[in-house]
């Protein structure tokens, strides 16, 4: 069977599974729609959280990013896992004990303020929309590349599938489809990794192959990688040229941002007990770690394979580089997509791939007769092209396509649900139309989800300039606005309404302002985005940390000079600190 047919079968079967689950898990109450009736087993919730969390970026882009950044890619590995420790120990159990439906609802109750709730909803909607636009784009790209359909057709199919299970099933439908999506994506990710690890080192476990010797050389993979990339003028794989403070700040911003992302937090509202919320965060991280410890191995192996494919012989030798006409088939296929480009600058018919931005290497390159780097590789193709590079059978490639779509859809659905509950529960029921019945609220939630899907699809098709900067933006905002007020709401009895609102606004405005002025989002670039211009040497990706500190400082200072929180709020805080007395499963 040819690849396209196989891919249609793999993707079609996975869709049939998701829709089947949606019909089985139809939500009939607001409790089921928002938090799956609080009856989800902690291990199952861990798996759903992992799928919710791992987006198109984790599945498609991360390993390629690491392949080209080397040690510098560690910020994503640590940053996107370490936040689960914060979630497990500082947030999830207490928010589960509080026992309501949404994050803004907690902020509104704890700070006895409708304004605080509305500020939180605005942060939530903004964070979630920036993030979801990237997911829909991911769905469209996978569709158009593997199924050879138009981007728009791919987007519409993806929107239709999410519509069916998110609108019908709400959180209950999403939870069980996410479990299925996790299984699809982790199998799709690990199978090619295992094959490549085995081919390259003889050890099938990517995590161990990473530190093994390369077949036929007796050299450790990382030593060999360091050697081959430096010979071509690149930075040593296991080091970085970024400053320590920036690496530190970016990692911390990603960790804290993770713990402040509403679509992740809300997953811990769905388990029956406080202690389930604790263990569920652990299970989530186990399932995430399966992919996140494989990814750096995939990155290193891909980099080595790519370099060895191009640099077939001695660096600088006349016949040391791959002849363009003899390039492997996978390169031809990816050239057709424009994501891999070759330009024969010195006219020798061979491909030279090296770091032409390295001034010290330039004289050597000139001696070799090289006239600039001739190959540009989009980092996103590393994972997608992996099975082809390893010459795996077509069904593995089809599976990777289904896995990429699963990763994007599961994250999109989780985000759409928090947007819809923010609108129907926090804005409508909680603020503007408090008299609506449960049936009306449920209908409002479904309509809000449907509208959000259409907007997300539109943003995916016509991405505003800032989609590429989603990471900096969504994480920076979550770290500087939502995370601090939730933490203070649990761990301090003194922080009050005025402090929380002032803190959130200062953190939010500072972080948004900083990112916007350097990256030119919505406004023209005000300050050139180079290290010399950064505040304390911290790039826009890491600036959420400073925003977070400002939020804490302002909140404590303002609370000190204004009235203490009322008696009943102090009792509420005492109550959420103790597990006993949490409302159990609604019905399931």
């Amino acid at each position, binding site marked *: 069977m040819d690849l396209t047919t196989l891919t249609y079968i793999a993707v079609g079967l996975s869709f049939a599974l998701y829709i089947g689950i949606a019909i089985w898990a139809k939500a009939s109450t607001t409790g089921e729609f928002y938090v799956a009736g609080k009856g989800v087993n902690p291990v199952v919730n861990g798996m759903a959280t992992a799928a919710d969390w791992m987006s198109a970026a984790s599945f498609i882009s991360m390993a390629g990013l*690491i392949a080209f950044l080397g*040690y510098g*890619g*560690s910020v994503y*590995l*640590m940053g996107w*896992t*370490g936040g*689960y*420790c*914060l979630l*497990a*120990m*500082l947030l999830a*159990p207490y928010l589960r004990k509080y026992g309501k439906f949404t994050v803004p609802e907690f902020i509104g109750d704890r700070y006895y303020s409708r304004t605080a709730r509305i500020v939180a909803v605005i942060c939530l909607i903004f964070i979630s929309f920036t993030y979801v636009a990237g997911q829909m784009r991911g769905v469209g790209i996978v569709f158009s590349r593997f199924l050879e359909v138009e981007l728009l057709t791919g987007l519409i199919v993806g929107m239709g599938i999410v519509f069916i299970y998110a609108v019908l099933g709400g959180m209950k439908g999403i939870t069980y489809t996410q479990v299925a999506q996790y299984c699809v994506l982790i199998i799709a990710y690990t199978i090619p990794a295992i094959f490549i690890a085995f081919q390259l080192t003889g050890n099938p476990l990517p*995590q161990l192959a*990473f*530190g*093994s*010797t390369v077949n036929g050389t007796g050299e*450790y*993979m*990382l*030593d060999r990688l360091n050697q081959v990339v430096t010979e071509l003028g690149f930075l040593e794989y*296991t*080091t970085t040229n970024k400053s*320590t403070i920036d*690496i*530190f700040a970016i*990692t*911390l911003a990603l960790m804290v941002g993770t713990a402040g992302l509403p679509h992740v937090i809300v997953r811990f509202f769905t388990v029956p*007990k*406080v*202690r389930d919320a*604790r*263990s569920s*965060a*652990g299970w989530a*991280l*186990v399932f995430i*770690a399966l992919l*996140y*410890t494989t990814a*750096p191995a995939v990155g290193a192996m891909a980099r080595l394979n790519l370099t060895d494919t191009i640099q077939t012989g001695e660096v600088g030798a006349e016949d040391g580089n791959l002849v363009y006409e003899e390039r492997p088939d996978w390169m031809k296929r990816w050239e057709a997509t424009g994501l891999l480009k070759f330009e024969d600058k010195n006219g020798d018919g061979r491909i030279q791939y090296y770091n032409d931005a390295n001034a010290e290497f330039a004289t050597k390159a000139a001696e070799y007769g090289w006239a600039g780097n001739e190959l540009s590789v989009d980092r996103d193709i590393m994972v997608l092209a992996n099975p082809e590079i390893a010459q795996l059978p077509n069904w593995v490639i089809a599976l990777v396509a289904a896995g990429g779509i699963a990763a994007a859809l599961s994250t999109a659905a989780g985000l759409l649900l928090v947007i819809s509950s923010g609108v129907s529960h926090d804005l409508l029921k909680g603020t503007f139309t408090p008299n609506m019945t449960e049936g009306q609220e449920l209908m409002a939630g479904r309509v809000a989800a449907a509208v959000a899907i259409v907007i997300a699809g539109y943003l995916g098709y016509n991405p505003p300039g800032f989609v590429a900067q989603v990471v900096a933006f969504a994480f920076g905002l979550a770290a500087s606005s939502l995370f601090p007020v939730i933490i203070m709401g649990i*761990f301090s009895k003194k922080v009050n309404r005025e402090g929380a609102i002032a803190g959130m606004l200062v953190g939010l405005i500072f972080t948004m302002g900083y990112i916007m002025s350097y990256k030119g989002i919505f406004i023209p670039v005000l300050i050139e985005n180079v290290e010399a211009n950064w505040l304390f040497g911290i790039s826009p990706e890491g600036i959420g940390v400073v925003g977070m500190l400002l939020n804490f400082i302002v909140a404590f200072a303002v609370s000190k000079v204004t009235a203490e929180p009322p008696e009943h709020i102090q009792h509420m805080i*005492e109550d959420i*600190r*103790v*597990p*006993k*007395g*949490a409302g*159990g499963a609604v019905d399931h």
Partner: protein
Amino acid sequence: MDEQSAAYWKRNVKLVSVLIAIWFIVSYGFGILFVDALNSIEIAGFQLGFWFAQQGSIYVFVALIFVYVAKMNKLDREFGVREDD
């Protein structure tokens, strides 16, 4: 807040402080601040600092959460605040 709850909360905060300190040392300490020093040690094909940054810290994160779960469950029982007691 009665004495029992205050004591429970104090023990909870103490446990979390210790675990977060380990969390910090492993990721920010071994993986970032002291990465160059640790990279001079090479074990089983890995420079140690690099290994902590790309593998080790993630394993430690998982372990920390399960230690937290076990210790908190014990603490809940000790103070009689388990949900189904």
